[in-house]
């Protein structure tokens, strides 16, 4: 498990995008014309209309284009095809993909990326014929505006309406789910070694985020090497719940707190610390996605429950913490769009998605997956989906009402966030 889906880089934010899109109808042709006029002859700037920043209180209906239609209903799946899947590393159980191919008599090939920036830089060229892509919600505006994704034909994907949480039937980032279906959900909390930090220590704290700053754990503290997650955590520590803030003062506050982490605990920024290094004993505390806490079981040296009991996961008791979800979509250049639709539907099937969950550690938003039973029901791996002492890593649909999501930022706000992160990563002195 080299890199879990958890680097989530660039996003665009609201105000700026609202401004950018202040009159999206006008901007669409204008932007193109402007680009054509200003861009240098040899650049390949994306020709795209402006798009607005999706927010829960300001949902986005992604645009449809005549030149980029959905496939027609009733088509037969492509024959002798190889389904090209473009996904995060280790974010799909091949056994599930193989069972899909057995059913539809096709092959599959998985191409991986390590972060969304890398994926976008490749896919934006529109030179790759991927059939299925796994984007994050913060890039949907860009991808659809640039016609890189194709609209979905819902006739092929009945499982979404039948199986998925109501919150994803008409999500704010893609109203009427024109271009995407949900894949997994997760929360961001703190993973800890219970043998060094008893449960009551972290759970008894007034502000458990502060445990990461405790010099007692110097050298044993890690955060994600991801600017959004790291800065968001510092914001939450300070009681700031707008994880897409454009206020320089708040971003600075978070940055200074991160730099303070260097001085107080010599923090390390990793992408595999939560699921691999903490179980090995290299960390006692690590910022963690709920899915990483679940997947860590595979990385425990002795593969025994007794040993694995040393791993705990903290997430705010009132469920007011960072929460997010990932998506599946179909690129407009897909060579096998019918198969791709069927694959999306297959992955939204209860059994298939739960089997996949048992391997990747990231929970699908399935109605039938009773959160109260995920710690007791046996998965395809012969163990509970989540061990009882990791019950707080179970994601509930209500988390998307109480929690805070990291969403798209405008380029200028994104720049502020990046500058803060860059300063921290360069080992700046406070």
């Amino acid at each position: 498990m080299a890199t879990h889906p958890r680097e989530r880089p660039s996003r665009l934010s609201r105000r700026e995008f609202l401004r950018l899109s202040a009159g999206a109808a006008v901007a669409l042709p204008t932007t193109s014309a402007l680009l054509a006029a200003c861009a240098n002859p040899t650049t390949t700037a994306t020709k795209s209309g402006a798009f607005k920043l999706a927010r829960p209180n300001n949902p986005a209906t992604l645009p449809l284009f005549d030149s980029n239609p959905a496939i027609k209903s009733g088509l037969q799946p492509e024959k002798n095809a190889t389904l090209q899947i473009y996904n995060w590393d280790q974010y799909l159980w091949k056994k599930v993909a193989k069972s899909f191919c057995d059913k539809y008599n096709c092959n599959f090939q998985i191409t991986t990326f390590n972060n969304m920036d890398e994926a976008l830089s490749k896919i934006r060229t529109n030179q790759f014929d991927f059939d299925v892509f796994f984007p994050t919600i913060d890039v949907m505006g860009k991808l659809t505006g640039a016609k890189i994704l194709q609209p979905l034909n819902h006739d092929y994907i009945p499982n979404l309406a039948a199986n998925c949480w109501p919150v994803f039937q008409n999500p704010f980032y893609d109203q009427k789910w024109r271009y995407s279906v949900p894949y997994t959900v997760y929360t961001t909390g703190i993973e800890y070694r219970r043998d060094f930090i008893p449960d009551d220590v972290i759970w008894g704290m007034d502000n458990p985020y502060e445990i990461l700053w405790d010099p007692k754990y110097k050298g044993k503290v890690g955060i994600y090497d991801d600017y959004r997650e790291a800065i968001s955590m510092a914001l939450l520590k300070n009681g700031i719940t707008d994880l897409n803030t454009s206020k320089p003062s708040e971003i600075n506050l978070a940055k200074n707190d991160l730099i303070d982490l260097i001085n107080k605990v010599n923090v390390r920024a990793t992408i595999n610390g939560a699921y691999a290094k903490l179980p090995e004993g290299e960390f006692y505390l690590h910022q963690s996605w709920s899915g990483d806490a679940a997947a860590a079981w595979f990385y425990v040296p002795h593969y025994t429950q007794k040993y694995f009991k040393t791993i705990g996961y903290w997430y705010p008791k009132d469920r007011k913490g960072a929460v997010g979800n990932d998506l599946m979509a179909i690129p407009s250049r897909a060579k096998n769009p019918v198969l791709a639709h069927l694959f999306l539907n297959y992955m939204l099937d209860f059994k298939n998605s739960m089997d996949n969950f048992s391997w990747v550690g990231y929970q699908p938003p399935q109605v039938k997956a009773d959160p109260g039973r995920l710690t007791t029901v046996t998965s395809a791996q012969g163990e509970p989906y989540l061990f009882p002492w990791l019950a707080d890593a179970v994601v509930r649909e209500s988390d998307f009402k109480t929690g805070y999501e990291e969403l798209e930022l405008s380029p200028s706000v994104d720049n502020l966030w990046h500058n803060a992160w860059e300063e921290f990563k360069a080992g700046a002195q406070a």
Partner: protein
Amino acid sequence: MLRRSATRSASKSKRDSRSGKGGVWYPRWFWPSFAAPGFAWLGVFFVLPFYVVLSIAFGTVDPIFRSALPVYEPWYWTGVHFSDTFAKIFGANAFFQPAILRTLLYVVAASLLCLVIGYAVAYYVARYGGRRKALLLVLLISPFWISYLMRMLAWVNLLQDQGYVNDILRFLHLISAPVPWLEGKSITVILGLVYGYIPYMILPLYAFLDRIDQSLLEAGRDLGASPVQTFLRVTLPLSKPAILAGMVIVSLPMFGDYYTNNLLSNSPKTTMFGNIIDDAVGSTGRGPEAAVLVVILMVFLIVPMIYYMRSTARSVSAE
């Protein structure tokens, strides 16, 4: 007629000057043409890629995806990314400075350690290796047939709290508790750099020391110099070009190294210049900044390179 024959004879003498020993005539382009593959190689694998880097550094970013867009026509180039990046190095909030100074310190320390260790090893093999020289060299180099990444990952295991390094140190009663080597320590990064690059120091040193004329050393001894004096006054000065070559060969890549720190530390406290570039490459909208940093690094590294070339040229002309 007279003039024509004079011209002919002059051109003949020119031809003669370009003749081989057997009097074979070669056209003017013949010998220089042997450099063509080298020029082609440099053109394809250095000049062109570097021009792309420049085009990114002076280019722009995609307005939607924020990825770097190289601009190949110099007349469209913009210096905005240079000024932004310079502000981070020399401006009021020059937060790149600590990492740059740290890199300088790490590279100097690691290069000197490479030199001390590498010189001793190369000297031993060249002077006392005897018939086993080749075997010793192979043994020294063989770990480096494995990829750098794998070797560093091996060190990660060795340096863990319960790793062999701590076990041995405890067995020898040198420490009472495990040394947290992997918790963001400068010394770990420096030793990692030394381990990673030391063969590039040993090989040129060995090649040079092995070719030192033994009669020079014997002459020194005959003139009454002790072994230490002979080493200091004969061997060491003679090996100066090899030392320079070794230092240049190991220090240049160290300046751009980022994965040693990534694998052995991951702490911002040990961030090096290469890590800043690596982070910029992987960040939205930071492609041009990464390219600017590469250009700055290259300009900076040209200085020792020129010094090396000039001193090499001087020593060649002295011979």
